[in-house]
C-alpha cells in the first residue's frame, strides 16, 4: 500500500479511537447534564466522574493525534479545513476548554454552588463540543470545503443539512456509547438501580441514534448524493450494513443484559459509520483534490509513520495498563 493510503488509514484509526473513547467521555457529560437535581442525580454523577476521571485526558490525546497527523500528512487539506471552518472549530476549541477544565475543577471543589457551576459548564460543553466537531465532519463529507485558504462559505459550509445532521449524530453517538459503557461500569460497582437506569437509557438512545442515522441517509441523498451512492450501492455498502447489523445486535444484547458484549457491538456500529464515510469519500479528501496531490512528501510520511510505529510499542502496553487498572474490580 502506498504511504499516503497508509497514513490516511492510520488517521482514520485515530479518528475512530477518538470517537469511541473521547466521544464516550463527552457522552458522560451529556448524561451528567440529564442526571437531574443535585440530590437525585448525585449517584449517577459520581459514577460518571469515577468512570471518566482517570481516562479522559488520555482519550483526549486522540484528537490531538488526528489534528497533528492531518497537518503532517495532508497539510493543504488541514489549512483549507481550518481556515474555512474556523467558526465551528473555534467554538469546539472553547468547548474543549470548558469541558476539561470544569471537570477537573469540579473534582476538587466541595461546596455545592461551585460543584453546580463547574458541573454545568462541564455538562454543557460536553453537548456543544461534539456537535460542532460533527458539523465539521459534515462540512468535509458534503464537499463544502474547497482547497485553498478560507475559500469556502464561512457559515454555509457548516450550517447545512448534512453538517447539522452530522452534529446531532455526533452528540447522539457520544451519549449512546457513554450509557452503554456506564451500564457495565455500574454493574461492576454493584449499583443495581444505576444499571437499570443506564440500560433503559441505552435502549432509548440506541433507537434514537438508529433513527437519526436513517434520517441522515435521507439527508445525504438530497444534500450529498455522491457519498449517499457510495454508502447505499457502492464500496461503502458493506460498512453501512456492518453498522446496521451491529446496531441492531447492540439493542438485543442490551435487552438481554449482556453488558460486556454490547460494548463491542456498539463500538462496531459506530466504527462502521465512520469507516463507511471514509471509504465512501475516498480518494478525494476535498472536492477535486486527490489524495496523492494533497499528501505530504514521502520522506515526511515515512518518518512520521515510522515514529508512530515505534511509539505504538510504548503506547499500546501503557494504554492497556491504564484501562486494565481501572476496569479491574477493586481488590478488597
Amino acid at each position, binding site marked *: 500500500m502506498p504511504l499516503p493510503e497508509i497514513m490516511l488509514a492510520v488517521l482514520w484509526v485515530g479518528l475512530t479511537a477518538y470517537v469511541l473513547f473521547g466521544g464516550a467521555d463527552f457522552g458522560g457529560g451529556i448524561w451528567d447534564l440529564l442526571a437531574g437535581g443535585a440530590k437525585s442525580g448525585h449517584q449517577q454523577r459520581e459514577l460518571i466522574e469515577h468512570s471518566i476521571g*482517570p*481516562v479522559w*485526558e*488520555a482519550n*483526549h*490525546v486522540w*484528537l*490531538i*493525534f488526528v*489534528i*497533528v*497527523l492531518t*497537518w*503532517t*500528512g495532508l*497539510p*493543504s487539506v*488541514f*489549512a*483549507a*479545513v*481550518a*481556515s474555512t471552518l*474556523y467558526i465551528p*472549530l*473555534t467554538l*469546539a*476549541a*472553547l468547548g*474543549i*476548554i*470548558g*469541558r476539561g*477544565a*470544569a*471537570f*477537573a*475543577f469540579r*473534582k*476538587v*471543589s466541595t461546596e455545592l454552588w461551585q460543584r453546580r457551576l463547574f458541573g454545568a459548564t462541564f455538562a454543557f460543553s460536553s453537548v456543544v463540543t461534539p456537535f460542532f466537531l460533527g458539523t465539521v465532519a459534515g462540512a468535509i463529507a458534503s464537499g463544502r470545503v474547497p482547497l485553498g*485558504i*478560507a475559500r469556502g462559505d*464561512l457559515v454555509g459550509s457548516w450550517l447545512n443539512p448534512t453538517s447539522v445532521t452530522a452534529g446531532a449524530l455526533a452528540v447522539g453517538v457520544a451519549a449512546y456509547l457513554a450509557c452503554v459503557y456506564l451500564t457495565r461500569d455500574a454493574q461492576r460497582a454493584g449499583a443495581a438501580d444505576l444499571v437499570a437506569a443506564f440500560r433503559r437509557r441505552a435502549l432509548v438512545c440506541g433507537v434514537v441514534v438508529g433513527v437519526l442515522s436513517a434520517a441522515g441517509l435521507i439527508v445525504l441523498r438530497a444534500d450529498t448524493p455522491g457519498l449517499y451512492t457510495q454508502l447505499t450501492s457502492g464500496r461503502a455498502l458493506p460498512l453501512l450494513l456492518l453498522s446496521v447489523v451491529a446496531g441492531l445486535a447492540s439493542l438485543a444484547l442490551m435487552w438481554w443484559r449482556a453488558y460486556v458484549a454490547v460494548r463491542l457491538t456498539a463500538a462496531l456500529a459506530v466504527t462502521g459509520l465512520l469507516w463507511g464515510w471514509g471509504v465512501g469519500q475516498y480518494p478525494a479528501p476535498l472536492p477535486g483534490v486527490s489524495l496523492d496531490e494533497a499528501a*505530504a*512528501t514521502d*520522506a*515526511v510520511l515515512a*518518518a*512520521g509513520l515510522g*515514529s*508512530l510505529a515505534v*511509539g505504538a510499542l*510504548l*503506547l499500546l502496553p*501503557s494504554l492497556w495498563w*491504564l484501562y486494565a*487498572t*481501572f476496569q479491574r474490580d*477493586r481488590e478488597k
Partner: protein
Amino acid sequence: MCHGAAMAVQVLDGVGGADLGAARMQMALSLGWHIVLACFGVGLPAITLIAEWRGHRGGDSHYRLLARRWAKAMGVLFAVGAVSGTILSFEMGLLWPGMMGVYGEVIGLPFALEGIAFFIEAIFVGIYLYAWDRLPPRAHLLAGVPIVLAGVASAFFVVSANAWMQRPTGFQVKDGRVVSVDPWAAMFNPATPPMTTHMILAAFMVTGFGVASVYAVAMLRGRRDRYHRLGLLLPLTVAAIITPVQIGVGDWAAHAVADQQPVKLAAMEGVFRTGRGVPLHLGGIAIGGEIRYALEIPYGLSLLAHWDPNAVIHGLEEVPPGDRPPVNVVHWAFQIMVACGFALLALAAWLAWEWRRRRDLPRSPWFLRGAAASGVAAVLALEAGWIVTEVGRQPWIVFRVLRTSQAVNPAPGLVYGFVLVTAVYLLLTVATVYVLRRLARDVPVPVAPQERDISGYKVV
C-alpha cells in the same frame, strides 16, 4: 506596539491590519497562558516524585503529605494544560493556515513525536493520580517516572518545532510548494539545542520557584512547621541548583541568536548601527532610530556576544525597516528576563551560602519575602523570554521565509474570535487561580507520629 508592527506590515504587504493584530494577540494570549501550565506539567511531576521518594526512603510522612498535595494540584494543572495545549494545535490552522498549508509537513515530525510523548504523559498521569491506593508504593513511584520523561520529551519536541521557525532548515520550496523535506534535519536545526535546553530548564525553575513561593507565603504568615519548611526547601533547592546552569545556557542561547538571527539580537540589545566594540545598553527607549536614556557599558555587547571586545555586531540598519521587529518590546522583554534571572540567582546563592554554613534556611524574613516573590519573577522571566523569542522573530512567522501577514487566515472577523477567546481565558484564569488557592488553603490532615502510613488521607 503590536498594532504598530501590524500597520507597518500592512503597508508592505497590503494584508489586513486589524485581523492580523487580533490573530497575533490571540496566539500570544493562548500561548503565553499555556506556557506557564506547560512548565508545571514538566516540573511538578518531578518534584512530586522527589517528595514521594524521600517520603518512602526516609519514612518522613511530611514528604508524603506534600507529594499528595502536589499531586492534587498536578491533577488540576495537567487538565487545564492539556486543554489549553489543544487549543494551540487548533489555532495553528485557524489563525496561520498560510504557514501550515505549506510547511505543516516540515514540522509535522516533532509534533507527531510530541503527540506520542503527551499520550504517555496523559496515560501515566491517570495511573499516578487515580491508582495511588491501588498500587504498591514502589510501583506507584515508578508509574510517575514516565510522566517526567515524557514531559521533558514533549517540551523538547514542541520547542524544536518553534526553533525551526527561527532557523528553518531541511526543506526545499518550488512554486510555493514544498518539494523535498528532510524532517530530521528540520527538527534538529541549529536553533534546537540551545532553545530546547533553555526552555526545559525554565520549566523546572518556574515550577521550583512557583511552588516554593506558596510555602514562603505560608511561612511568612507564621506556619513554620516542618511540613511548610520542607514544602519550601525541596522545590527551592531544585530551582536554586538549576538557576546558575540556566544563566550559562541563556548565554549559549544568546550566542546562537547572534549567529543565526542577528537582527533579533540587535532588537534585544537596541543596536541600530553595525559596528565594532559595541556597548551594552541597559534600559533605554528606542526613539527615531536610536536608543536613548540607556546606561552604556563600553564594549559590553561585543564582549558578551562574541567573547571579543572588538567583535562586529550587526545593527538593525542592515535590514529594511519593514523587516525589523519592534525594538522596544524585544529590548525591554530581554532586559526583564535577564534581571529576573540574576535576582533569582542571588536568592539561590543566599540559600546555598546559609545552607553551607548552618544547614538551615536563612533566618532573615527578607529571604522568605524573596522566596515568595521568586515564583512571580520566574513566570515573568518565562513570559519575557518567550516574547523575546516570538516578537523578536517578527515580521516573519518562518524567519526570512514567510511573513506573518502572509500566513494569517484571511477570513473576516478574526477580531471577534479574539474577543471571545479572551473572555473565555479570563474566566479560565479566575477559576484556575480560585481552585488552586482553595487547594493551597486546605489544612493538611494531621498525622500522628505513631501512624505508620498516611494512606487514610484521601486525596483523589
